């Protein structure tokens, strides 16, 4: 390969048409209310573990929609359920996380 002193840089843009959303679809079949998430982030704001473990349910759902691996974040969840209490859409977030853990298992 010719060395020009510079190379092509990978685009940081996400190509959603190429994203693998099979996990997200599977999750939606187990917890249909996942589709009602509007990404407000109330769950992440109230998460006790979040500041220490990097857990953010908002990021988890967004990551699944983009076909990304969200397992490292799930490990930080303590299943305390505070997020369930604040969700304006009434999503059973704890059940959603448990279902997702089951899919990964």
């Amino acid at each position: 390969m010719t060395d020009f002193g510079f190379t092509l840089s990978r685009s940081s843009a996400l190509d959603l048409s190429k994203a693998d959303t099979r996990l997200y679809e599977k999750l939606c079949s187990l917890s249909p209310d996942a589709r009602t998430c509007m990404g407000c982030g109330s769950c992440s704001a109230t998460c006790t573990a979040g500041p220490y473990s990097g857990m953010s349910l908002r990021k988890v759902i967004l990551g699944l929609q983009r076909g990304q691996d969200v397992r490292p974040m799930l490990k930080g969840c303590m299943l305390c359920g505070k997020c369930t209490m604040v969700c304006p859409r009434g999503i059973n977030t704890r059940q959603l996380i448990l279902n997702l853990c089951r899919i990964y298992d």
Partner: protein
Amino acid sequence: MIYEGKQKIWKDYQKEIPDDHWYYVRSCIRQNFFPASERKFTDITQQVLGKDVYETPYHTTCGGIAYHCDAIPQETAMTIVARQFALMTEAGYENYVPSCVTSFGNYIEILETWREFPELEARIREQLWKATRREFKKPKYLAHTSDLIYHWRNEIAEKASVRLIDHETGEPMRMAEHIGCHYAKMFPSKGIGGAEYPYVLAGMIESWGGQVVDYPERRHCCGYGFRQYHMKANRGYCVSNTHKKFESMEPYGIQAILTNCPGCCYFMDRWQYVIAEQTGKTYGKDGFGIPVFTYEELAGLVLGYDPWDLGLQLHQVAVEPFLDRIGVRYDPKAKYLGLNKEDILRPELPTNLKCF
């Protein structure tokens, strides 16, 4: 939508282009990149179309390249532009046509700034007078050279000896058009079709028999972007933008690209070599690239000019497959013969991009 209503809306995207008497200024970089294009513009307009297009050897750069590279402030560019307008005034012209898209954007930006801040225009007039004892009138009409070729596209089509039609299949050539960012993205009302529906190049392709092909990244920048390229550390970003465009147009079977900006034409042509060297990938058929033309070159081809007189041997991507497709006759042995028919030597051939 009702047809009349559609026409009324489309009128907002048009601009008035006088048919004759233009003061022409060349581009600094085009004469190095594609040296025959500007010469052929004067040939086509003066000799083929019989128009009054005047140029003077005293004009200089518009300062746009230095302004966009952050090398000079806008006020310096304004004084340079004021001198250009003074030359036009002295020559007795009112219609100003620059050959470079960045010059076109630079002139509009300066005229708009003067309209907003008349005191700045007065200061520039004073500076020009002190420095050169010159005065100027602002142009009545400002157009880019591609606007003029667009304006005269049907006259060119009437005189055409070649159409943009595939000789083997009888189908129109599948062509992409790429508009320079400084043409209409800065001041949409100043370009034909605005920033949303630029029609200046698409109109030429359609008039000359080709088919305009749409693709997702059609309006993405070519990547040049002045300070991106001129700093070597940023060139990876520059070529990545071009790569993004070519990846996007790959599935659409595009046979040629038409551009109206010096940088776009140069970089979309040359970067195909760099991308091929770095990734091994080429975007044309059978290992060739996709040829990229200036509008003067394409006008010259349909009017029957010799491809080597149009300077097509200076393109990185081989143009011969395209010429064969539309039925342009050329002498392959004359490709590297200069004006005096002396051999101008052959370039080193790339590893991955097929060239002649």
